[in-house]
């Protein structure tokens, strides 16, 4: 039997499949259900200081090789969100709190509040590609990534995982900046900035025009990003982008990720996707002669 347990900066997971932020994580009921369906942990919807409605519809477009979304960071605000984390915890979930704000101080304030809810770690959404005027665009500036990370680190006791954007020239530079800021782990990648147009209507398909592309289309970009990051930093990495099978997850693990996040694949495989991917990973790891997940982390670098 392969031992599927893994660990990221002291956060122990029963298996390496985490729910990616933005999917089924606005409510505690859904997060609890995802955890009970087999996820090793759930990452919350990105939560800010105040309630936020997000963008008008259409906010999602299904494409051949992925999903384009510009949901616009809807969230009930960090104060209200306590109820949702409580409810997820009541269902037994391991919860990681994703936060955003308009500047470093706001990120820190939201993270500090979130950390009092018993979340195991804070994920910093530094990289949402479709929210204007928020700190989420700071992933374009390596020194800002470092400073935001440090500001948050100064006020929370749990591990901090900045989530990085692939919409940059060299993502490893940004990972290094995050590590300099005290990051305990790196999450890569967020969605790719993208657009779809509806020719019959001669207009962009999303109300926000631009959105973030997820799913199979970005998997190889994510694997490359994780590989590059792991060449540069020493902190653990969580791989995300187009994981839809155990084999996909293993690509990320072998590129150096300690765990993976899953979102878009819920569409094609349902909530059973977490259990199924765990089983597929176990069988592939066994075939390859591994006894545990940590043994396989980063082996593609050899």
């Amino acid at each position, binding site marked *: 039997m392969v031992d599927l347990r893994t660990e990221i900066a002291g956060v122990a997971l029963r298996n390496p499949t985490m729910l990616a932020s933005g999917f089924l994580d*606005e409510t505690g*009921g859904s997060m609890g259900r995802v955890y009970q369906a087999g996820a090793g942990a759930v990452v919350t919807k990105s939560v800010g200081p105040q309630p936020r409605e997000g963008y008008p*519809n259409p906010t999602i477009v299904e494409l051949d090789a992925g999903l384009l979304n510009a*949901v616009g960071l809807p969230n009930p605000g960090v104060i209200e969100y306590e109820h949702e984390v409580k409810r997820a915890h009541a269902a037994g979930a391991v919860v990681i709190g994703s936060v955003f704000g308009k500047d470093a101080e706001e990120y820190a304030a939201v993270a500090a509040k979130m950390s009092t809810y018993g979340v195991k770690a804070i994920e910093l959404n530094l990289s949402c590609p479709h929210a204007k005027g928020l700190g989420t665009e700071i992933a374009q500036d390596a020194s800002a990534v470092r400073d935001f990370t440090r500001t948050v680190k100064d006020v929370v006791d749990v591990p901090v995982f900045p989530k990085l954007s692939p919409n940059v020239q060299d993502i490893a530079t940004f990972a290094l900046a995050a590590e300099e800021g005290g990051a305990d782990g790196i999450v890569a990648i967020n969605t790719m900035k993208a657009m779809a147009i509806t020719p019959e209507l001669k207009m962009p398909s999303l109300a926000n025009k631009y959105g973030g592309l997820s799913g199979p289309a970005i998997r190889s970009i994510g694997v490359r990003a994780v590989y590059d990051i792991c060449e540069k930093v020493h902190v653990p990495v969580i791989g995300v982008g187009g994981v839809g099978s155990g084999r996909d997850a293993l690509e990320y693990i072998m590129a150096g990720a300690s765990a993976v996040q899953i979102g878009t694949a819920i569409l094609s495989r349902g909530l059973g996707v977490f259990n199924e991917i765990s089983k597929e990973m176990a069988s592939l790891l066994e075939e390859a002669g591994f006894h545990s997940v940590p043994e396989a982390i980063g082996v593609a670098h050899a």
Partner: protein
Amino acid sequence: MPRIQVVPLLEIVRETPTTMTYRFRADLGGQPGQFLMVWIPRYDELPMALSYLGAVKGITVRDYGDATHALAAFTAGDRIGVRGPYGNAFRLEGQSVLAVGGGSGMASMIAAIEAFSQQGARVVTAAGAKNAEELLFVERANAAGEVHIATDDGSRGFHGFVPALADKLFARESFQQVITCGPEKMMYAVVGLARKRGVPIQASLERYMKCGIGICDACSLDDKLVCVDGSIFTGEQLAGSEDFGHFRRDKSGRRIPA
């Protein structure tokens, strides 16, 4: 994967002073109770029940906000985007059926009322509305079975709310199945009546939606999603619900009184 189809409107029918039906051809299936995500270009994309399932589909919508108001000004030839069908369908079980509709909720049920009738079931419809002018699909329901009317102002039929009318019908005869759609407080009362009498009930719920395909979590009801686990829920499912009849989510995800 279901993808958006851009279709021209073929016909627009005013059903009541506030409710319109839009007919179009689209290459999609659809069973009684399912819904489409309907893109009103430049305004919004909203879930709307299929009120006609044949070759020429139909959606029937009450004008309640900016987007539905914009849609009401559309004319034949104007184009909308549709994707779906989404959600589950009414299970067409039982030989005697009570359908309890409030206002535009009849739009979600009328295809089921007709389907029950076509397979030989006796269908009794209790249709309620604010006033006589706002009654929806009474003729179609009448062609499928027996219809009883309730209006809030007494301008036609029973003077009062439709659950009270449904209670009279329950007292008069026994049904094997109840279906309901309308304002949530109304459905809450009807679910209570059906459960008290031990009759299976299916209620078609409405929540704010973004994706319609089970990923965004905007339409959650307890730990369920109205878009993929519903929109039709059974009385058993709703009996244990903390949200049904009490709470919904606003666009930010805040839990607020229903």
